C-alpha cells in the first residue's frame, strides 16, 4: 500500500513537470505566429518595392548610350589635343 502512495506522489510531480514543459512549448509556438505574419508583410513590401527593378533596363540602355557618347568625345579629344 505504501508503494502505491509513493507512486501517486511521483505521478503528481511528473504531472506538474509535464504540464510546465508543455506550456513552454505552446508558448514558443504561439510566439512564432506573429513573427511569421510580420515576415510575410515585409516580404510583400519588398516584393512591391522591387517592381522598380525593371527601370534598371532603361538605366542600362542610357548608360550604354552615355558610354558611347563619352567614347566619341574621347575620340574627338584624341584628335584635338596633342599627345604628351
Amino acid at each position, binding site marked *: 500500500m505504501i508503494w502505491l502512495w509513493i507512486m501517486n506522489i511521483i505521478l503528481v510531480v511528473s*504531472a506538474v513537470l509535464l504540464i510546465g514543459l508543455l506550456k513552454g*512549448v*505552446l508558448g514558443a509556438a504561439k510566439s512564432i505566429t506573429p513573427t511569421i505574419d510580420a515576415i*510575410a508583410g515585409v516580404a*510583400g513590401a519588398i*516584393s512591391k518595392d522591387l517592381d522598380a527593378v525593371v527601370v534598371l533596363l532603361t538605366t542600362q540602355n542610357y*548608360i550604354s548610350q552615355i558610354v558611347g557618347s*563619352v567614347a566619341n568625345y574621347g575620340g574627338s579629344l*584624341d584628335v584635338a589635343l596633342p599627345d604628351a
Partner: protein
Amino acid sequence: MSLALAVMILLITAIIAALALFLCATIVQLVKINQGLAVVIGGVGEIVQKTAPVNGVLDAINGNLVAGRNLLENLFIKKAGDDAGGLVESLFPGEGAKFLQRVGRRGPVVNTGIVYTRGTVILASLGRGAPIGAAHAKGPAVRDPKYATTAAAMLYPRPGGDPRARPKSPVVGSNSPRQYEASATPGVRPRNRDGSEAPPPSEAPDMPTGRVEIRQPEPAAAPPPSSGGGDAPPAPGRLNVKGARPWER
C-alpha cells in the same frame, strides 16, 4: 479498490488529459505557422523572380562603365603622360597612387595642384603658353603658389580689361544730367564750342522746313530754227534726274 489505486488512476487520467490538451494546442499553432510560412514563401518567390535579371543588368552596366573608364584613363595617360598621376592627385588627393597602380604604372606622384593652379597644365597642353615645364618637377615651383592666381591673371588678362577704366553707364530718366544748353531759337547755337558767344543770326537760317512747294513750270522758249532746215538730234541729256524735282529748281 483501495483509495491509493483510485488516486493513481485519477492522476494518470489527468496527466493524459493535460498531454492531449497541450499537444492539440501546439498542433494548432504549428498549423498556423505552416500557413504563415506558405504566405512568406510566396513573397520570397516573387522577390527571387524580380531580382533574377538584376545580376545580368548590373554586370552589363558595370562592363560599360569599366570600358568607358578604361577608355578615358588611356586617353588621359596618352595626353598627360607622366603628369597623369599628379593631375589625378591634384584633383582627388590620395587617388594618384591608386590611379597609377590601377593602370599599371610606377613612379612618384607629384601633386601638380601644389605647384600650378588648377587647369594650368591643361591650358599649357592646349598651347596657351603657361610657363610650366621650364623646370624639373622636383625643383622649386615655377610659380609662387601663394600668388598663383595673380600670375595666372597676368598671363590671361580679362577680356574686357580693367573694369575701373571702363566708361560708366549713362544715367537716363528724370535724374539724368543736362549736357546741352537750351537755345532760344531752334537750330541756333547760343555759344560756340570754345565757350565764346556766338554771333546773332543775321537772317533766318536756311533750314529745311519739310514743306514741298510746287511751282508751275515756266513756258519754254521756242527753239531757234535750225540752219540746216532738218531735224537736228537733241543734245544728249543728263542721265541723272537731279534738278528735275520741283524742290530742286
